[in-house]
């Protein structure tokens, strides 16, 4: 099976993240870059399906030079090869542009199954799977907490508030996964050493037959118009327990709509 896993490098969720003052795009230098958390699950699922059905796992990532680190991590977990799309002109691309670029890459690699995380921790749009499936003309199977396939048909558990739906479709398909799907492996030392010898193809927009005017902030349909920094954390409220501490705590939680 030809499995492609999409991987994105994002600023570490644990570090302070900022937007740039000049064009309101993400300030990638302000925070440590890590692999998008959900992508670990997507890679793991790809590797498990490969272990069960054979074939190859290819990592595809669009991002700056530095995204090579995220790709290397995916390769060290066990993926076979990678394609890295990197081009200065891509900076600031929104979901629509990103999906066009990735669809073009997928046209080159071919695929039976495309696996991706259901959202990235930076933009949190969660729309890429749908856009890609539409562009590729294949079914989208979203929010999968379980994936099964016999090589021609694919069945997933689609996570929902009430439990899950069982959704069936035909391959080729695009599947987005949620955290519940598996427990991602850690790269082993052997995997880390092997990653350095695995092929990584680097492509520019021109290599994909695309023009710079089709990419980046200017070509994007959505843009950040304005933003405000999160207000500094205010001091907490201290409730003195005069026998009614429980009730006061419940009152507070209710006022914030937690209960």
């Amino acid at each position, binding site marked *: 099976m030809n499995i492609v896993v999409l991987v994105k490098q994002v600023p570490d969720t644990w570090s302070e993240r900022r937007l740039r003052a000049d064009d309101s795009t993400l300030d990638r230098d302000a925070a440590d870059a890590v692999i998008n958390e959900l992508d670990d699950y997507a890679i793991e699922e790809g590797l498990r399906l490969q272990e069960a059905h054979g074939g190859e796992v290819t990592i595809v990532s669009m991002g700056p030079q530095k995204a090579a*680190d995220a790709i*290397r*991590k995916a390769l*060290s977990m066990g993926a076979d090869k990678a394609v890295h799309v990197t081009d200065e002109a891509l900076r600031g691309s929104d979901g629509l542009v990103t999906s066009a670029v990735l669809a073009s890459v997928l046209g080159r690699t071919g695929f039976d199954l495309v696996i991706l995380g259901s959202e990235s921790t930076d933009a949190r749009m969660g729309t890429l799977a749908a856009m890609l499936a539409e562009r590729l003309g294949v079914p989208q199977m979203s929010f999968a907490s379980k994936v099964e396939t016999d090589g021609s048909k694919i069945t997933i558990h689609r996570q929902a508030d009430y439990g899950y739906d069982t959704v069936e479709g035909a391959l080729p398909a695009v599947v987005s996964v949620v955290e519940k799907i598996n427990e991602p492996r*850690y*790269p*082993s*030392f*052997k995997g*880390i*050493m092997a*990653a*350095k010898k695995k092929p990584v193809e680097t492509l520019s927009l021109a290599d994909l037959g695309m023009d710079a005017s089709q990419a980046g902030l200017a070509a994007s349909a959505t843009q950040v118009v304005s933003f405000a920094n999160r207000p500094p954390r205010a*001091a907490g409220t201290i409730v003195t327990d005069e026998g009614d501490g429980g009730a006061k705590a419940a009152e507070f939680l209710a006022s914030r709509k937690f209960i």
Partner: protein
Amino acid sequence: MNFTETDEQVALRAAVADLGRKYGYAYFTRQARTGGRLTELWQEAGALGFIGVNLPAEYGGGGAGLYELSIVLEELAAAGCGLLMMVVSPAICGTILARFGTPEQKQRWLPKIASGSAIMAFGITEPDAGSNAHKLTTVATRDGDSWVLTGRKIYISGVDEAEAVLIVGRTADSKTGTLRPALFAVPTDAPGFSFQPLEMDVLMPEKQHLLFLDEVRLPADALVGEEGAALLQLFAGLNPERIMASAMAVGSARYALAKAVGYAKERTVWSVPIGAHQGLAHPLAQVKIELELARLMMQKAAVLYDAGDDMAAGEAANMAKYAAAEASIRVVDQAIQSLGGSSMTSEVGLAAMLANVRTTRIAPVSREMILNFVAQHSLGLPKSY
């Protein structure tokens, strides 16, 4: 000279740090307080090839160096769950076996040590011979094809978890009768070998033991390396020990410092976070510098060791152990001060960590013995003993 780690070393750091986060200091203290061990972490790290990164690839190791092994221990300790037995099993015993063992001994022990499926402890300290190894009284005598070992050892870590202990004994030269050190791999189930745990006031899951060797009969191939060359072999193992002890201390100190800094940014007693007061900020900055200096010397020692320069590595490893002990004690002490009363709670566990890093000033070699070494070997000063 190069201060940039390779992509693989950076990736190893990240992978080990991830694994460490899964367990953390809460796991470490819980296991220590309930008499448990760090077995799950040990085995998972072993399966990922982290425990044996320094051992030869042909015997199941990672084929990398001590630098990589120190990365593993530093990152686990920085996550709060350093594995003490890494100082012993792959670093001391694995190194000695890989460098001086016969092909049969390597085949027998290295794959197990590398995968973590077996632990080899190390016993040199005796009740009457700690810092002074010339006073070792564990003696091996030849009896036909066998060795017969008799003696006592003290403070030996992890014997209860180990499949064997690498015992430093002495053999009598058949002609002159002078005693010369020799190393023996003694299975923990050998008849005549027994041990009991010591009650210790340091909070770590690895227990220290008193060992009794009562005419333990061992086959000829229990002798590791050559009879006469044991001193050299011993030093080959002790440099990795010192570097790894430094890695453990540096990692623990990183944990404590991160804890202190996190707290100092959040905790507000007057109108600003306490980290804004120079009374706290400067001491934290100071210990950060001391910690980085110690870490740098540890890395220098590891690089020299991996380059095959045992002599230069020896001096650097001793200096690194000295610096790492002093820096980690100061870091944890300052972290305790920064956290105020909460530092003394069991949940935070910094008081317990202070005893652990404090041990590094004594073991595996005491501060004074390092100063003696530097005074004599680096400075050429005369000896008092």
